[in-house]
C-alpha cells in the first residue's frame, strides 16, 4: 500500500537502543500502559458478562447500533484526517497540516456530540448505571428489558473512559493546531504532530475493539 509520494524524513536524534527519538518512545510506552488499562476493563467486562449473561441485552435491543456504527465511521474518518495532517507536514505543506488538523478536531467533536446524544437518549429510556430494567419502550417496539445493574455500569464505564480519552485528544489537538498556525512545525521538525497522531490513532484503535465487544457481541 504505497504510492509515489516519497518524503524526506529528517532523523530526530533517535535513541541508540530503539532507533526512535525520545518523545516518540515515551508516547509508545504510555500507550502500552493504556493497552493494559483498557484490557483490564475488557477483562472485567468478560468476567461480569459470563457471571450474569441474563443481565446483558442482545445487540441492538437496548443500545443503538446504527447510530454507534455511524460514530465508529466518524472516528475512522478522523484517523485518516489526522494521518493526512502528518503526511502534509512531512512534505512541508503547512496549509494542508492546518486544514487536516481542523478536520480532525471537527470529527472528534462530532464523535463526542453523538456519544452525548446516545447517553441522553439511553438515560431518557431508563438505561442508567445501576438501573434494574431498561427502556420503558425499547428499540423496535420491544418492551422493558430486564437486567441487572451491572449492564449499565459496565457500559458507561467502558464507553465513558474512552470518551474521556477522546475529549483529552481533542483538547491536545486544539493545542497542536494552535502551534501549527504559529508555524511551529516544519518538514524537518514535526514530532509534535506525529506524537499527537499516535495518541489519536490509539483512541481510534481502542474504539474499534470496544464497538465490537460492547455493541455487537
Amino acid at each position: 500500500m504505497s504510492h509515489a509520494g516519497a518524503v524526506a524524513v529528517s532523523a530526530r536524534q533517535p535513541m541508540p537502543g530503539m532507533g526512535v527519538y525520545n518523545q516518540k518512545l515515551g508516547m509508545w510506552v504510555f500507550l502500552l500502559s493504556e493497552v493494559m488499562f483498557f484490557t483490564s476493563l475488557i477483562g472485567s467486562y468478560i468476567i461480569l458478562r459470563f457471571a450474569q449473561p441474563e443481565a446483558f441485552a442482545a445487540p441492538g435491543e437496548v443500545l443503538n447500533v446504527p447510530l454507534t456504527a455511524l460514530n465508529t465511521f466518524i472516528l475512522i474518518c478522523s484517523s485518516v484526517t489526522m494521518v493526512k495532517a502528518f503526511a502534509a507536514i512531512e512534505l512541508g505543506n503547512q496549509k494542508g497540516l492546518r486544514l487536516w488538523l481542523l478536520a480532525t478536531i471537527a470529527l472528534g467533536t462530532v464523535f463526542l456530540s453523538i456519544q452525548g446524544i446516545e447517553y441522553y437518549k439511553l438515560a431518557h429510556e431508563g438505561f442508567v448505571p445501576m438501573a434494574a430494567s431498561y427502556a420503558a419502550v425499547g428499540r423496535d417496539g420491544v418492551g422493558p428489558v430486564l437486567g441487572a445493574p451491572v449492564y449499565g455500569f459496565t457500559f458507561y464505564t467502558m464507553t465513558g473512559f474512552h470518551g474521556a480519552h477522546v475529549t483529552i485528544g481533542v483538547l491536545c489537538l486544539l493545542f497542536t493546531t494552535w502551534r501549527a498556525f504559529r508555524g511551529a512545525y516544519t518538514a524537518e521538525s514535526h514530532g509534535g504532530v506525529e506524537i499527537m497522531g499516535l495518541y489519536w490513532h490509539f483512541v481510534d484503535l481502542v474504539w474499534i475493539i470496544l464497538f465490537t465487544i460492547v455493541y455487537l457481541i
Partner: protein
Amino acid sequence: METTRKQPNYVMVWAGLAALTVVEVLVAFIAALPKEILIVILIGLAVWKALLVAMYYMHLRFEPRRLALMAASPLPLAAILVLAVLAERF
C-alpha cells in the same frame, strides 16, 4: 542526516476500515450463525481493523523492528488476562 520512505496509501486503508465496519455490523445481525462462530468472526474483524490502524496509521510497519516488538509486548499479557478469565467459565 536524511532518509527517504514512501507514504502509505492512507485513503485505501480508510476505505478498508470503513468496509470492514459495514461487514461487522451486517455479520452481527445474521441470526443463522451460532453465537460462538459469530463471536470469533467479529473478534477477527476487529483485530484486523486494529492491525490496519497500528500498521499503517501508527506506522508500526515502517518503524524499527525493536519498536514494533516493544509495541506488541503487552499483547501476550492482555491475552493471558482475558484467557484466564475465560477459563473460569469452562
